[in-house]
């Protein structure tokens, strides 16, 4: 499974900012580490700011700071700000969906989507950061 670019940027930014108590970083610093465009990241950070997950600190030495709750925010909370995990469950229709073959295919895809959703919904940022630490 592949996540969209904006989603990956958001997850990287959040994990970076949430990894330390009161950690404050500029968009440039985050963009550089992950090799992503600062402009793109700035847009993503604005979206995260709108839902209260990050806050911008103004002035010299300003940047962004995580303002959510690491033990309550899940990967799904962030992912669904940028994309839909389960388009089929949400009723998005495609050609052939009404045929027996299409219905069978939808069942299979729904099983995959349900598993993906449950996985993302059960991993908090705190848990994800432990996983990151294990991979260092």
């Amino acid at each position: 499974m592949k996540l969209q670019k904006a989603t990956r940027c958001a997850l990287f930014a959040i994990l970076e900012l949430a990894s330390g108590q009161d950690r404050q970083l500029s968009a440039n610093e985050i963009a550089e580490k992950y090799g992503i465009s600062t402009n793109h990241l700035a847009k993503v950070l604005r979206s995260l700011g709108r839902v209260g997950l990050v806050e911008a600190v103004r002035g010299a030495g300003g940047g962004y700071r995580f303002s959510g709750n690491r033990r309550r925010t899940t990967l799904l909370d962030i992912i669904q700000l940028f994309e839909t995990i389960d388009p089929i469950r949400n009723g998005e229709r495609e050609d052939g969906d009404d045929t027996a073959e299409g219905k069978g295919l939808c069942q299979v895809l729904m099983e995959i989507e349900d598993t993906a959703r449950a996985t993302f919904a059960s991993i908090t940022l705190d848990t994800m950061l432990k996983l990151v630490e294990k991979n260092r």
Partner: protein
Amino acid sequence: MANPQVKQSERKCTVRLAKATDIPQVIAIDTENTGLSKAEYWEDLFERYNNRSIDTDDDTQPKSVKRYRFFLVACDGDKVLGFIIGEVRAWEFGSPPCGWIFAVGVRNNIRQGGVGHVLLEALNDRFRKAGVNKVRTMLARDDTLIMSFFRSQGMMAGPFIQFEKDL
């Protein structure tokens, strides 16, 4: 989503095998957490897990080596804060002996205080003493709260896929 990293202080508790007198509190915790009161179910579990064995209230070594079913409670004095139930099972689903966790519950008002972690570690210790080095559990896909707990303890999806069919 506000209020970052508020971590409640780790709660002091002791973990031991459940006794008959703990069961009403276990039932109350489960009822509080699930909204369903199933007294008979818990009494039966206690009977099968902790009351049928010859070493009824002693899970210290060396007797615990022979023990493979565990109904544990975390207590603060006489107050039961939470419970966990597990069992070593072998060769079911083609699996070599491993520990299975069937149930875990902590009083609602002390969640995220470390009681679940202490219970899980105590059960894992007993599984290790019983000779297994793998622990598994099974969850409903929509039960993301308890799934989050197990994931926070380092558990990941296992190698089995559950199948079902309406009969």
